[in-house]
Every structure is written in C-alpha cells, then in structure tokens.
C-alpha cells in the first residue's frame, strides 16, 4: 500500500495568491494512498526541504509529490532532498502549480480545482513510480576530430594539450583547410600561412595526436563515451613511411593540366601531387581519377621509375579502420558558391568574374601569380576592379537567405590588398549593408574607404556583361536616388555565399546529428549550447555550423575542446535512467515481444537490437527486441508503437500514464487501473 506525501508550496504569493493552497492540501489528504499532506510558504527553502525530509521519516512515506513550480525548475532540488531522507529520488514527482496554474489563471475556484486535479494526477503517477538508479557508462578517453582546418587544428591541439588522445581525419591530402588558402587576414593583415603553418606542424608532431589525411569517416556507431568510428583511409598509392618527400615524382608526372583545388581552379597541378608547398604531411599522393596509370590500365608509371626510394605503390587499396572514441568534434568546414550560380553575372562564363576565394589565391604570395593581381583571362593587371558583396547571400529567391557573415570583412580586405598592390587602380565595392561587428572590424572597413580610397556604392548589381574586353557592371547608387552606375571593369570579384559542404547532409545522418535547412549542422541550443549537438558527445567547431571567420572558428573550437576535456575528466558517465526496455519473463514465453521488429526503424538512436533467446543446447527459441540502454535516450516512440505493449519506459510507463489520464475528471475510484 502506497504512503504518499503531498507538499503544497505557496511560493510566497506566486501560487498562494491565486490558489487556495490550504484547501488543496486538505483535498489531497483524502486521495487514496496519501498518508500526509501539508502546505508551506516556500517548499524549496531549507525549512521547506527539511519539512519533506522529516515527513518522509515520520510518516514512512513511499513517495512524494511536491506541488510547486515547474519541474524544469526544481525537480533536481526536491529529488535530492528526498534521497537525503533515504528514499529513491525517482519516487518524487512535481505538480506544476505555478507556471501551469497560478501564473496563467485568475484567482478563482476553478483555479484551485485545477490545482487539486494536477496534484491528484501526480499522486496517481507517483504511486506507480519505481526506484531507479542512474545509468553509468565508461568513457573512452580518445577524441575524434573530423576535419583539419583551423577549427579542427585548434580543437585537436587543445584536447591533446589537456592530456587526451586525439584522432584527426582530413579528407584532402593535407591539413590546413580554407585558412591555408587565404592571403592575408582581417583586420590585422597578417599573413595567413605564417600564423597557420606552425600549428599544422604542431598537430603532425604532437605525441597525443594521430593524423590521418586522405581519410573519410564512413560510419559512427555507439553513444557518448563509447563511439566506434569507421574510417576509410583512401589509397595514397605512395608509401609515406618510405617517401622522403623529394618531389621527383611530381616533376616527372606528365599529367599537368588538372585544375588545382588549392588555387581554387586558377592554376593546375599534376596527378601525383602535394596540394601546396607547406602541406602537412609534405608527401605526395596520386590522384587516381586523373592518373593515366589508373585511368588507362597501367600506362605511364613514370613516377615509379624516378622514385629512388621505391615508395610508389600502385597496388595500395582503400582501407577501413575502426577506432573507439569517447567524443567527436565535427569541424568539417564549409564551401562557397561558384560564379556559375549567377545567371545575371554570366553563368560563370566570364573568366575575369571570380570568387573571393580565387582572389585570395591571386593575392597570396604562394598563389599562381605569386601575389600579383593579374586577371585570369589574359594575365593583365586590372586597372578597374569591382567587388560585389552579398553575391548569393541574403538572396532568398536563389535559396540562400542568410548572411554569410564573413564577406563584408574579406571584401574590404580584398579591396585594400588590391589598392596596396595596384596603387593607381580603381576599386569599387557594391554592397547592401556593411556588417563589421567585431573587434577592430569597423575601423578596418573605414580604413579601406578613408585611407585606401575604395569606392563603396550602396546597391546590388543587376547585371554583368562583357564588351570590348571590359566587364560592364550595371548598378545604381541607392544613396543617390538610384543614380545609375555603370562601371567598365577589368575584373569582378563576387563575394559568393558561404554554404554547407556537399555531402554534409549524409555526414549529419551518419553522425545522427541534426542540420538546418541549409545543411549546416545544428547546435543543441542557439544560445546556451552553441558547441554541443543534440547527440551527446558530439561537438561542433567552425564553419560547418554556420559561416564564420577565423577568430570565431578558433573560439568555438576551443569551446568544443573544453567540452570534450570535461567529458574525459571522469572515468564514468551517469545518465538519467528514464529509458525504454523490452519486457522479459520466464519460460516458455521469455518476453511478450513477438519479434516483428517494426520498432527498429522508429528509433532515432538505432538503440533497438535483435536478441536471440536460445535453449541450453544453443537452439534458437525465439528472436526478440532488446534496447541498448547506452543508446536509448528515452523518447518512447517505440513504446507507443509496440502493438503488444511489450516495450515500456521508466518514468512514463504504461501504468503511470494510464493512471494519470484515468485519474482526471473521474469521480469514481480507479478500479480498472
């Protein structure tokens, strides 16, 4: 027989001012199974909590209902209190008399009546609560960092420096990411590679970091503290243990016309290649899609002939390795729209209409023009250059409605770099708004305008077309009553929108994390959990979550690293035990589960497995469902789906919710429950 204690809180006037708390306590005392009922000014205060503890002992209570504020507020408080009095914390429930009752209704009999019923419902529920223990799971103290751009590098170094192992995987042959492609960085104009390369080397040499380049994640199973990552190591066709990075193979490779990814398509590379001189690791790979040895059945083979170390290995195969990790930092970065995205800017036909990233390569000392601004079509130095901000961004008609955030700043930087390199040249920027919120950012933009004489024109460009070797850029100055502006430019740079990587949807699905409508990965809470995802143990860093600049990426990466380090600071994790389970009983039934497995696909966490029940001789008796308690998050969707009610869930069990529903409006006793 249950002995439930009911504690009605006035919350000062917050509840007491609207609800007749004394009456509620009196009514509750009459509910079947209630052994003690009382009201008090502030239940969450020390005297209030002591009152509960004393009552538990004095009245030998088997369960407690605290009718006060929202359980989202004080449930942990009261559960802790009852456990201090010696009963299981999960035998305490809260009725929400404040947020759901006194604060939203007027002082009235019906409000008090509602309060009474809310208490009644929770009394019926708590009668059927079971004592539960938090689930403990061990933690594998190795982190997986996906992506070797600046965010991944920062996260990996921070985690490694706090003493934990890190596995970093990068899909291209070198780490460095977009930052390695940049020329100078705003607002300081310091050289991007100069600040990045030391960190890349640190990653490669760190004793706690294992680096896999030319590698991709193919699957992630498991749960926080206990993930299993499957990683594909693409065949490099070169044994990096033997290769000394001399570059002879690259010099001899006859396939030289492959558009160079590192130079954003502005230069070319060979089929055996190192993406850029400062690459880490600085050893080549063979691009099998373009190498004639692979595309034309063993023809060529020159690189193997010139390699004095015998490092070339055409027979290498892709390899899949599985690694246990406890946490994941996703830092896969972003991509940008190409110029072919814009019908009105020539569908990408005009060679001298380029993207911001291409301009970075032109301005970079390590780029195809060694840092001289020369236009791609004929190598001439443009004397009149136009930058177009918001090219694609803030354009819902074309499907990119958000602001890409970084373009205002890098466009100002581009215009400045241009003016620093081509002193007599003319630079114009078409913009809609200048978003320069950030330390020294506004000052930077003003410098471009005031000191470097960049011509900022407020308006979107309607069209670009080519005539007489010039690019005609048509716009209006909206600050001058839409005064028509037509510029005969030599080169146009589009600040194209930052977008999610191709395949990010699939990656999110294999990680079981959510993503937004633009395929950027979703943080768990836009304000308070900006680095976590909805899947415990998986963190986000950098532009895979939304376009962001270097300082923001680095900050977020360090944040993610701290989350990982905090997770690794304990040997075990504890989790709320409110999870689902499939019933088990004695032979000959073993479980009422009939093994139809319709539930398997409803589980968002792939927590439902098949279990074979066998007799002593190992013969299969039946196959039934089993829920992995490490994976289950307790949504209960399987519980509602199961036809035979063979699945139940702690905390929201069939008998609990049934009793709650039947307790309402029902004057008769709960004979059927």
């Amino acid at each position, binding site marked *: 027989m249950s002995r439930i204690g009911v504690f009605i809180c006035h919350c000062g006037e917050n509840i007491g001012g609207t609800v007749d708390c004394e009456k509620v306590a009196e009514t509750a005392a009459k509910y079947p199974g209630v052994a003690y009922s009382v009201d008090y000014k502030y239940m969450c205060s020390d005297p209030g909590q002591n009152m509960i503890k004393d009552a538990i002992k004095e009245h030998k209570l088997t369960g407690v209902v605290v009718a006060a504020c929202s359980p989202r507020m004080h449930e942990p408080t009261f559960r802790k209190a009852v456990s201090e009095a010696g009963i299981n914390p999960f035998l305490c429930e809260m009725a929400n008399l404040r947020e759901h009752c006194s604060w939203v209704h007027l002082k009235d009999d019906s409000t008090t009546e509602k309060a009474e019923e809310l208490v009644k419902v929770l009394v019926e529920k708590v009668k059927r609560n079971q004592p539960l223990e938090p689930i403990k799971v061990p933690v594998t103290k190795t982190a997986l960092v996906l992506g070797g751009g600046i965010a991944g590098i920062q996260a990996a170094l921070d985690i490694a420096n706090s003493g934990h192992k890190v596995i970093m995987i990068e899909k291209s042959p070198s780490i460095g990411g977009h930052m390695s492609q940049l020329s100078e960085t705003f607002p300081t104009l310091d050289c991007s590679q100069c600040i990045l390369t030391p960190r890349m080397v640190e990653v490669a040499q760190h004793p706690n970091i294992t680096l896999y380049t030319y590698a991709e994640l193919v699957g992630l199973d498991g749960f926080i503290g206990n993930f299993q990552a499957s990683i594909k190591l693409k065949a490099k066709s070169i044994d990096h243990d033997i290769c000394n990075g001399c570059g002879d193979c690259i010099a001899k490779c006859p396939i030289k016309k492959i558009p160079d990814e590192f130079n954003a398509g502005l230069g070319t590379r060979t089929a055996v290649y190192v993406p850029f001189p400062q690459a880490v690791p600085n050893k080549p790979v063979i691009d099998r899609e373009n190498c004639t040895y692979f595309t034309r059945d063993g023809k060529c083979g020159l690189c193997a002939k010139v390699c004095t170390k015998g490092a070339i290995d055409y027979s290498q195969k892709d390899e899949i390795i599985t690694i246990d990790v406890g946490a994941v930092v996703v830092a896969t970065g972003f991509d940008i729209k190409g110029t072919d995205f814009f*019908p*009105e800017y020539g569908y990408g036909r005009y060679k001298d209409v380029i993207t911001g990233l291409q301009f970075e390569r032109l301005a970079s000392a390590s780029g195809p023009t060694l840092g001289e601004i020369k236009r791609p079509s004929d190598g001439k130095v443009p004397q009149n250059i136009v930058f177009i901000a918001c090219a694609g961004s803030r354009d819902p008609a074309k499907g990119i409605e958000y602001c890409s955030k970084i373009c205002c700043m890098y466009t100002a930087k581009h215009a400045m770099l241009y003016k620093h390199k081509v002193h007599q040249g003319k630079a114009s920027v078409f913009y809609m708004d200048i978003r320069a919120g950030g330390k020294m950012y506004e000052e930077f933009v003003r410098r471009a305008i005031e000191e470097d004489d960049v011509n900022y024109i407020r308006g979107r460009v309607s069209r670009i*077309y*080519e*005539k*007489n*070797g010039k690019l*005609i850029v048509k716009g209006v100055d909206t600050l001058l009553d839409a005064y028509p502006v037509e510029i005969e430019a030599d080169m146009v740079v589009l600040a194209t929108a930052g977008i999610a990587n191709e395949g990010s949807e699939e990656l999110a699905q294999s990680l079981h994390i959510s993503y937004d409508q633009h395929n950027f990965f979703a943080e768990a809470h836009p304000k308070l959990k900006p680095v976590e995802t909805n899947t415990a143990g998986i963190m986000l860093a950098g532009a895979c979550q939304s376009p962001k600049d270097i300082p923001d990426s680095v900050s977020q990466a360090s944040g993610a690293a701290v989350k990982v380090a905090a997770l690794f600071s304990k040997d075990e994790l504890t989790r709320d035990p409110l999870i689902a389970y499939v019933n088990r009983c004695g032979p000959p039934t073993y479980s009422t589960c009939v093994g139809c497995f319709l539930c398997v696909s409803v589980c968002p966490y792939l927590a439902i497995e098949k279990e074979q029940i066998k007799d002593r001789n190992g013969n299969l008796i039946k196959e039934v469902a089993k829920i992995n308690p490490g994976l289950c998050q307790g949504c209960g969707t399987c519980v509602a789906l199961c036809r035979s009610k063979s699945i139940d869930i702690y905390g929201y069990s069939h008998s609990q919710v049934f009793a709650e529903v039947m307790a309402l409006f029902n004057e008769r006793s709960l004979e059927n429950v």
Partner: protein
Amino acid sequence: MIKIAYFPGCSLEGSSKEYNESLLAVSKEFEIQLEEVHDWNCCGATAAHNLNKVLSISLPARTLALAEKQGFSEILVPCAACYSRLLTAYNELNKDAALLEKVKEILEIDFSAKVKPFTVIDFIQKHIQPKLKEKVKKPLNAKIACYYGCLLVRPPKLVEVERYEDPLMMESIVKELGATPLDWAFKTECCGAGLSVSRTSTVGKLCSKILDDALSRGATMFAVACPMCQSNLDMRRRNANVFLNEKADAPVLFITQLIGLALGLDKKELGLQRHFVPFNLEIFDKPIPKETLGKSKKVEEV
C-alpha cells in the same frame, strides 16, 4: 499531317502579317496544319493589365476557353506579348479557383483552363528542328543576332526557360540553318514594346542600344520571334538611328522567315517585302565580317 491549335493574335493580322505568312509557309513544308481557334479575340496585351486585372485575365481566357471547347489541349501563340497574357491567364486560373469561377461567369462559358499556350520557339524545337537539317536547301551565310526581348524568357517563374539571362534556343536553330549565331549582351534587353506609339523616342533609344551592341559585335542581321520586337527594331529604325553614330541597316527577320529562306521558299511567300528596313537576298553573298570589336567567346554548344 499534325494539327495544332493556333492563336495568331492581332499583330499577325496587321502590322506583322509576314510573321503569320512565314509561319504558315514553314509549317506547310513540315506537314503541320495550324488551325486558328475559331472566333478568337484580342488578348488585351499591355493595355488591359495596365488598367484592369479582371479584364486582363478574362480577355485571354475567352480564347483559352474557345480552344478548349474546340477540343485542343495546347495552343501555339506566336506573339510574345499575347503568349505572356495567355500564360498568365492560364496560370492564374489554375492557381485560383475563385478567379476561375468569376471568369467563367463573366465569359458565360464553362471551361477548366487546361489549354496551355506555347511559343513559336517551343513549336520549332518540338516539331521543326528534329527534321530541319535535312530540309535546309540554301544554308544562310550570315552572322545573326538572336533577339529574344522580354516576354519570351521572363519572368522565369512563369516562363520555364533554361538560361533566361542568356538563352540559346534560337541560336541553336540558326546554327542548323547554316548561319553563325552572335554572342552578344543585349538579347534579353527590352525594346520598349508597349510604348511604341505613345513614347516613340524612348523606344528609339532602347532599340538603339540593342542595335549598337549587336552591330558592334559584327551582326549582319537579327532574328526575332516576337512581332513587337520586330516592329520596334524595324519600323522604329529611324527613331533608333537618331541615337546612333552610324546608321544601322541590318534587317530584322522573324525566325520563321529565316527558316523559310533556308528551305528555299520564295521571298514574297515569306512576306519579306513588307519590312521597313529593306531585305535583299544579296545580304547572304557578302562575307561575314570578322568580329570588329571585343573578343566575345563562342556561344557554348547547345
């Protein structure tokens, strides 16, 4: 013999007779019978939608309704303005059931607005182009600026055209006629259309820009698929020339006339004598000028 419903529109009965003549002549060569929708009426063009929305839907709707009653499911509309009006009516009526009811009541015709309009370019692509190459008798030696104007390609949400900023449909057609299509920048700029009568000088100015871009890139003639584009570039040439340093004398032909010429049809049969800017067959004997200016790239393969 394929039978296709046909809405010539007012211009093709009047100021652009040659469009009608050449379209019918070419269709005949390909054994296609264009059957005029019986008792069709004016679409109301720019005037109606400038002034009164319900009228602007009801006028074209009557023709759509008549075509439906006469058993057709689509209708060929050679005039771009008529096409735009008919297509708008088609879309609005299919989108808005209440409007359809209202229009049914106004027309006093019960119909479902399921007859879909299509352009002469669609028509050529579907019915003529597949057999065009084999029928060409006299390949055209010309550098042709294909001019689309507005309503054949815009708005892209209404008119489903690929590459609406730089369409290449007519280019691929003239290429099959043996001519060289011009890569130029003003193929979808507006000629002034509805202001032809009321603001002739504005139209002249707009046309001069179009002429200038094409001619400076070496065009010898124009191909169009819209009577208003044709009449503005042709009839209003004098007004355009005012704005040009060098008087432009490149003729403006309907795409159907060009096809007719390549098929070896008679000049008169194609109404070529009706143009303001005179057209002579000798034009094809002249060598095609090298690109005088610029360095425009070849039009991509279509």
